């Protein structure tokens, strides 16, 4: 029997505008530094969508979202300057995050 992998989606707000696709490697490196390689590989966080220059979505293995949220609290460098990454909401589906992102993006 093949078990279906389940994920959690985390909506992240950056304090400054950044290009998530370009910054993926930097943010991942910072996250790995704070989470450690073992926790990072268990959580396997990756950026899957960007709604606005400040709002983007992380996809993470279910049960490990707490580690990602804590790891993001320590990340203060992104896009070549001091940037804070705030986790706004977590959800089991990306669709509900899109609805919420539309409400807060203005």
């Amino acid at each position, binding site marked *: 029997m093949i078990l279906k992998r389940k994920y959690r989606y985390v909506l992240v707000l950056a304090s400054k505008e950044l290009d998530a696709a370009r910054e993926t490697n930097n943010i991942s490196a910072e996250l790995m530094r704070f989470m450690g390689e073992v926790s990072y590989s268990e959580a396997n966080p990756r950026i899957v969508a960007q709604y606005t220059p400040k709002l983007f979505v992380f996809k993470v293995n279910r049960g490990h979202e707490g580690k990602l949220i804590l790891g993001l*609290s320590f990340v203060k460098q992104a896009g070549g300057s001091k*940037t*804070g990454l*705030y986790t*706004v*909401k977590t959800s089991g589906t990306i669709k509900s995050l899109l609805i919420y992102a539309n409400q807060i993006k203005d």
Partner: protein
Amino acid sequence: MAYYDLVNMDAPDRKTASILGFKKIFSKKELPVVDNLGYTGRCILASGEAGMLGRGLRRNNVTGIMINDSELIRMAVEEVVDTEKILVLPVHGITCGETRARLRNIYRMRGLMATATRSKAKIALVTMAEDESCMLSALQMVEVAKFIGATEAQAKKMVGAIGELE
């Protein structure tokens, strides 16, 4: 549950606070953190001297204390429990400090948290952020509280505790 925060700068607007999951973010003007007893308005006393903390806790205008010296933890926590004031724990040292200082702060905060929760002191977890990048969302604050030794229920209570001063 409503969450609150205290920052060491001008507070962000209400909308930003609500996006971050807080009901209100107190600014340094609304709730100043002072290091002497000369201030007569409502404030939080931050000190590393046992005598000053003791005197401050008996004053009505001092609503909470911040301990700067880990040697004083036990004494101060006992007095906080007796006077029913709030023990304010800033997390900016953990999330914003450079690596070596951060490790020291994590160790210190874990000790403080263990002593305070054992004595059933009222604890408020705040960021005391000095700039925008050091701020955290309510979700992150709860995770940081859990990281330094609180249970989920205690963590949520701590992030909302500073709201009593609203």
